């Protein structure tokens, strides 16, 4: 359901996806505050669900990737990234809302920008500017002569392409999935109304099945993309923190 912007402040449009972002924040904060309201030693269903979500991000994304010693300060950021992207993506599969917020590239750029700034900042803070740059652009155990080619290539791929693709990966999959569902839906409409007859009905049934298939594929991809975004962020942080080279 495409709506025009509700109102505008200067060039800033307050539209459906803006509302969805606020809604996602309210939903996430509300759910986790509700889940831990009692803090029982033996958790009830709600608390168990909240703790399971938190434990998943903490253990499989934080501790396993960033490592036992360093992961603690990163849990809040990882946790917010994962659940913010997860809920915003799943908006694409909820009838009536039907809009993954990150299919507007602006929000994806901001998220990847926050991730980029934080891992570059912690890398420079840990190693110093020169050493961090050397770590990012000069892979170890390579003949010295090859550095002429390697430094520009590594610089572009690690410090320029990396944040861009980090943002575009989640944007592109959300946008394309949104489009694919729309194509299946308009194919159904076209076959039923414009073609008509027995062929139209049979083809329409096929298009309906296609739409349902794409819908469930999309749910899978939406969850997976939230996981991959957070995981890549953890991998980048781990790379920036690591000692050596």
């Amino acid at each position, binding site marked *: 359901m495409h709506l025009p912007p509700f109102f505008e402040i200067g060039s800033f449009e307050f539209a459906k996806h803006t509302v969805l972002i606020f809604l996602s924040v309210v939903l996430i904060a509300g759910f986790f505050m509700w889940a831990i309201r009692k803090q029982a030693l033996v958790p009830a269903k709600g608390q168990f669900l909240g703790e399971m979500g938190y434990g998943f991000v903490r253990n499989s994304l934080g501790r396993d990737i960033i490592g036992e010693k360093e992961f603690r300060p990163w849990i809040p950021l990882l946790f917010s990234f994962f659940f913010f992207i997860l809920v915003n993506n799943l908006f694409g599969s909820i009838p009536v809302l039907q809009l993954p917020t990150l299919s507007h590239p602006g929000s994806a750029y901001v998220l990847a920008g926050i991730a980029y700034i934080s891992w570059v900042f912690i890398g420079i803070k840990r190693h110093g500017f020169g050493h961090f740059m050397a770590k990012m652009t000069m892979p170890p155990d390579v003949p010295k002569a090859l550095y002429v080619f390697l430094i520009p290539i590594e610089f572009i791929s690690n410090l320029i392409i990396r944040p861009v693709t980090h943002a*575009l990966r989640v944007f592109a999959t959300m946008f394309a999935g949104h489009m694919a569902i729309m194509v299946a839906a308009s194919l159904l409409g076209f076959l039923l109304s414009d073609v008509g007859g027995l062929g139209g009905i049979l083809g329409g049934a096929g298009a309906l099945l296609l739409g349902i298939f794409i819908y469930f594929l999309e749910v899978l991809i939406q969850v997976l993309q939230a996981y991959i975004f957070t995981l890549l962020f953890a991998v980048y942080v781990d790379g920036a923190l690591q000692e050596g080279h």
Partner: protein
Amino acid sequence: MDITGSLSVIGFGLAAIGGGIGVGLIFAAYMQAVSRQPETQRIIQPMLFMGFAVVEALAILGFVLALIF
């Protein structure tokens, strides 16, 4: 029957072949490595996603170019 549309979409389809094969190879190698030595999983997993991100970058850039042109 005349077909209209952008040729760059076909170009993206061709570009996605490379990324698809690359990602498939990476995950196949990862599964093989972990099934041979499960205890190395913790070391290999960051490398897996690093390589996956680099390979998939090409397909994503292709997608963007298909949208732009």
